[in-house]
């Protein structure tokens, strides 16, 4: 049978554990407030096309002989209010980071959490075309340094 002191210490230790856990999510008053439903997860969908004077053509594979620039459109959903920064990385076939582009936007209070960004990555005249670096390249998009989505494209001769 635990002694009174033991039970006291057990309650104190439990309180300490609960406090440590509460410190992660914010330790407020001892009042019980309603638990908020979890924020829907941020999501992003990318489309990639070859930007020319005549428009922008989406393709599965882009020829390095005719490509000009890649236009990347990102549709964001469930973005929390405030200033957010999108980081778009283009990774080469070996997984190395070829280019990094940051784009910030403001999600207004009371908004629907949706946002769109457009980024242009020059390909013609780059080392990709000059050195004919063909293969599967990957776009990786992050929001405030949290990776959200990837999209692959192929560069062919």
């Amino acid at each position: 049978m635990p002694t009174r002191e033991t039970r006291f210490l057990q309650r104190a230790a439990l309180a300490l554990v609960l406090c440590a856990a509460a410190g992660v999510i914010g330790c407020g008053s001892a009042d019980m407030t309603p638990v908020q439903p979890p924020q829907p997860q941020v999501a992003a969908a990318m489309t990639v096309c070859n930007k020319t004077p005549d428009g922008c053509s989406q393709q599965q594979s882009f020829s390095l002989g005719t490509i000009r620039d890649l236009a990347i459109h990102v549709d964001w959903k469930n973005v929390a209010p405030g200033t957010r920064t999108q980081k778009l990385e283009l990774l080469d076939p070996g997984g190395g980071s070829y280019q990094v582009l940051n784009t910030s936007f403001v999600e207004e209070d009371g908004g629907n959490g949706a946002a769109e960004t457009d980024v242009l990555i020059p390909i013609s005249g780059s080392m990709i075309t000059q050195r004919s670096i063909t293969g599967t390249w990957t776009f990786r998009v992050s929001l405030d340094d949290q990776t959200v989505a990837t999209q692959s494209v192929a560069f062919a001769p």
Partner: protein
Amino acid sequence: MLCAVKILKLTPVRTRLLSALFVAASLGSAASAREQVVIQKGTNGNTQLRGGSLFLDESAPTTTGSPDLDVKARTGQRQRALLLFDLSSLPTIGVKQATLTLHVKTGSPNSRTFGAHNMTSFWTQNASWTNRATDANNLTTAWTAAGGDFNGTATNTVTVATNLVSTVSFTITGDAQNWYDGTANYGTLIKDENEGNGGTTLSQTIFNSFSDAITTNRPSLTLTYLQNVQNLAATPGNGSVSISWTYPTTTNNLPGESYAGVIILRRAGAPVDKNSLPTDAQAPPALCSTIGSGTLVFAGTMSNTSFTDNGACSALTNGTQYFYKVFLRDNLNYYSTSVVASTYTAETAAVPGTTQTLAWTIATHSYNLGGGGLIPGSQMVFGSDTSQLFSVNLSTGQRGYPAVGLGGTVSARPPVLDSSSAANGAQVAYVAAQDGNVYAIDTSSTANGQILWLANLSQTGSAGNVFMGGAAVQVKQYSSASYTPTFDTVFVGTHNSSTATANSVIALNGTTGAVVWTFTGTNANKLDMVNSTPTVDYVNNAVWFTSHSNALTTQSNLWKFNPLNNTVSWSMNLGNAGDIDSSPSLTPSGDVLFVSANNGNLYAVNPAAATSGTALLATYTGTDGAIKSYPYIVTTVNPYTVVFTTGTMVHAVSFNKNTNTFTKLWDSVAFTSPSAPVVYNFSTVYIGTGSDIIYELSLASGVVTGQRVVDTGNNPMFIGEPSLDLVLNRIYVTTTTNDQRSYAYTVPF
């Protein structure tokens, strides 16, 4: 973090136990290390040339907030502080802790939570709520998000009633480490984390700025760090490698702490991965243990300044390249690294059984194949995909100062002028970037990468311009009397994919950045994208551009401009060649201009021709598809030997101006994606490749006479265009993929 918990009937024993438990729960991991310095404008002579502070004011959106740093939460009147610390005084350190401290000038009686956010866009000292930069021609560039582009997640937050404290401090260790480990330093934004909930003006706090009259009141950044060993060198022997180094001078020791020695990791065939790090506060593991991709082969004390690896842990194989990474540690076992083995963790390599010499290697954590601009024997300047400009001391391989953060990727080689040549008297690099800006940067050791001016050309002619080719400079000192400006002129051509007719060529005043003249293509004279660096012709008083031609044979791809104004002397579609991506090359006497085209042909052009009709002298029909490189002119007099690369080969031809004929000299064997060539001493050709190897070829025959394996551990890896240093007899290259380093090799191999 303490919670309100009701504990009944506390006895002294229980109190002590609970106190211990709460203390244990709240202890952080205080980082102790060897040295600590306070970076503050005016302290210890720190001028903060590249640093500064201001605030953004929503109620005055186009005005730069000064002289203090105001932070306010009220809707429609939000104020945010911006700070950028110039870290030039500590170019090569491993950061362990970074604390940003602001001094309160006028505090708020309400408890507010302030956040320190990493900035993600380039800005200048005249930034406002709406605009992040204003250029030399008073053109503004807007933030992509009004009120500043920054990471929405705060690096650190502090809750305080600022009228009760004199300072507010933020831990920004991760951001500071990243500024040394591959991310551009755009500084920190301070804001109220409950903007819109500011109520009355009592939500405002005013902090002292960089310009405060009292030095000690200015913002400060306290860095705790370790330095790296210096003068690291590796000498190959027979089945052995000898490593030597020196220790840095220390002036900022923490009391009771001292450097204790080094540990050395070794890896065969490839550099030790940047994530292979010893663990701080832990003694070195046993010899021959592995740390990531490296093997611990040596652990020494401060009495050690060298180590001979006779096959520690495993025998060395002659002919295999071994990489060594040297970590300096202190008496508490903190190591000279940060998030990753930073750009400053010393590393070297050697190949036992050979005489191969790697002069130095440094990590850049960036991707750049465009090559560096050189002041031979002294400095190399090169850009990156991370929007940074690096400066390296060519003798030591050390960074003179941390990389300069710019507004966009730099993909081409920047021209660098020494101060005795430049009209502005500065050691200046002109950098054309993919944000559509051209930057003039003082690369000297006194200015440490200070930006002298920037010119926003992103909307010139057509909206959305970027730069893929580099800038060219006409230096007044080397020009004829017909060159009348008092300044050097900087020339750039735009890459704008949304138009095949209205791209632009722009001339800038090299001293001020003012636009001297602009040519924008018209229906009568269509100009497609310019992907190359222009060529200044001092002999014929011209500046030459190549361009795309909308893939047509009827639109111009070669342009001759008057450098003093936007007059096109003539333009033509050279050889019905279609698009041209590479730069033209001019002989020293100015009698032949060589142009290599995407159709695989090399053209010889008369640069003195008065019209395009008489310009083409001869055509060399190449093999192996498009010519990928500029024509490298080897000889200085007629007949001219020209070397160039295609998709898989290196080629050498001879052109005789007297007969206007090309003669093939040789085609090389096939390589994987050869780079543009350089030629040393009229005898050896050097190319980087996409197979981890730098090749040396005989100029006389094209036969391979030597090679250097750079890194076999990061396939596929591409090696960039070499830069040739005739003072130190070296070539320098940068690399891609997960290697992301710069290397210096002595030539000939």
